[in-house]
């Protein structure tokens, strides 16, 4: 059986409160908090991008795994904000972490589920016996247009997972994917900001795929929601995952540990992987965990996971997700946010 042998997460320290964004555009902050269930979001510094977030998350994953980085045979980074249009993010990462050069590297993109896409492929390569260890990462410095609902959620962060076949911290018991052509959110080549279909991103997109994938994996495994200690659903805002959980029969207690969106925002490809990292930070041996991602366009990947006896001792090192969310943070004004996100046009 293959599973997770190391994991790590990284969240930038800058934050902007929902009230600050609402104030800028004359919107009702209380309505935003109530409607989207978002208190604040992470903001990348000028010197942070998908590559730097991936390296920091993967460094903790390698440390927790205790393996020699040279034994990692595949590296996949899922993101919709790769810094280069042409040049892989993964090549910088492998040289920074001492992986390779005997390694297969690729960058993935599938809106917000590129991270679990990378994790799925990494897992399958280990299961097939093609590589001994494989690294799958979801990370983003998400884009959201000014005065768009996305601006309240689009944030920065990510998580990294090393898959292997022995000394597992987490068993992967089953996977299931559900995909269809659904144009709910997109960004055309060369465009700076994504577009979306407003309410169309809900029922026919997020809920259809998240519910179908979760029901599919429950049926495949013969498990019920009450069999799980924790569940993590993709978090475009704080409202959708709570509604999806309720419709599927999961309780508030099962999802609250991984519901990082309220403080972190939506880190797109890094969203559900970071939620999973928050769960692994506290899960006890034997706990079962459900993970269902969602990526616009659209599709969902579901995983059924189970923590092993090794998890508590290995997670002692490395940064914890909720520790990064709670302290230390640096709050920025909308003006500083616009500068950090390079929304201001400057002369050459």
């Amino acid at each position: 059986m293959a599973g997770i042998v190391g994991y790590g997460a990284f969240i930038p320290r800058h934050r902007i409160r929902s009230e600050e964004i609402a104030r800028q555009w004359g919107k009702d902050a209380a309505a935003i908090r109530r409607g989207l269930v978002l208190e604040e979001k992470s903001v990348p510094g000028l010197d942070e991008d998908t590559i730097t977030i991936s390296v920091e998350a993967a460094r903790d994953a390698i440390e927790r795994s205790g393996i020699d980085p040279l034994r990692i045979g595949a590296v996949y980074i899922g993101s919709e904000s790769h810094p280069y249009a042409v040049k892989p993010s993964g090549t910088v990462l492998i040289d920074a972490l001492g992986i390779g050069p005997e390694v297969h590297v690729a960058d993935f993109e599938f809106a917000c589920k590129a991270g679990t896409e990378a994790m799925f492929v990494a897992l399958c390569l280990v299961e097939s016996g093609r590589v001994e260890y494989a690294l799958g990462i979801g990370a983003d410095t998400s884009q959201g247009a000014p005065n768009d609902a996305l601006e309240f959620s689009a944030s920065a962060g990510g998580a990294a997972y090393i898959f292997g076949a022995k000394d597992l911290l987490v068993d992967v018991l089953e996977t299931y994917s559900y995909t269809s052509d659904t144009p709910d959110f997109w960004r055309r080549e060369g465009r700076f900001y994504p577009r979306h279909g407003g309410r169309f991103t809900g029922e026919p997109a997020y809920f259809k795929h998240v519910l179908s994938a979760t029901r599919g994996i429950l049926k495949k495994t013969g498990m019920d929601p009450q069999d799980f200690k924790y569940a993590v659903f993709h978090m475009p805002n704080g409202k959708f995952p709570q509604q999806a959980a309720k419709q599927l029969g999961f309780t508030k207690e099962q999802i609250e540990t991984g519901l990082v969106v309220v403080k972190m925002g939506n880190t797109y490809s890094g969203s559900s992987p970071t939620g999973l990292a928050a769960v692994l930070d506290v899960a006890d041996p034997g706990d079962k965990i459900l993970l269902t991602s969602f990526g616009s366009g659209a599709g969902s990947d579901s995983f059924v996971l189970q923590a092993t006896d090794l998890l508590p001792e290995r997670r002692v090192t490395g940064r914890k997700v909720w520790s990064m969310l709670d302290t230390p943070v640096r709050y920025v004004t909308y003006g500083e946010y616009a500068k950090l996100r390079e929304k201001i046009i400057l002369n050459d």
Partner: protein
Amino acid sequence: MPSPRYWRAIPSRLRLEAVRCRSCENVVYPSRRICPHCHGTEWDPAELSRTGEVVTSTIVHIAPDDFAMEAPYVLALIETPEGARLMLQVTDCDPEDIGPGTAVNLEFRRIRAEGNSGILCYGFKAVPAG
């Protein structure tokens, strides 16, 4: 920085690869041919911790073009537990809070971009610990 020059510095910039003098055992970063402490010429590889302490620092108000958006920022001489000293930018901080003795962690960051269409240069910066 031209791409080949950046590429040649990848071991030291991206992995913080340092060297330990076989003669006096001082750790030197980046690697060099002659030990600045004992003039020894034989070295072993040394790995640096991702932590350190500020030895001295200054605040840059008038920055080079590629760093103009980050001004004012701190440049500091950082000493790692191995005794190596690195000149690094200190980020995610209020510049006035940084001074001798400030404990820092070293994090992987984008150092600069070669204009709007050139390569992106990565390396390490210091961030206040805690």
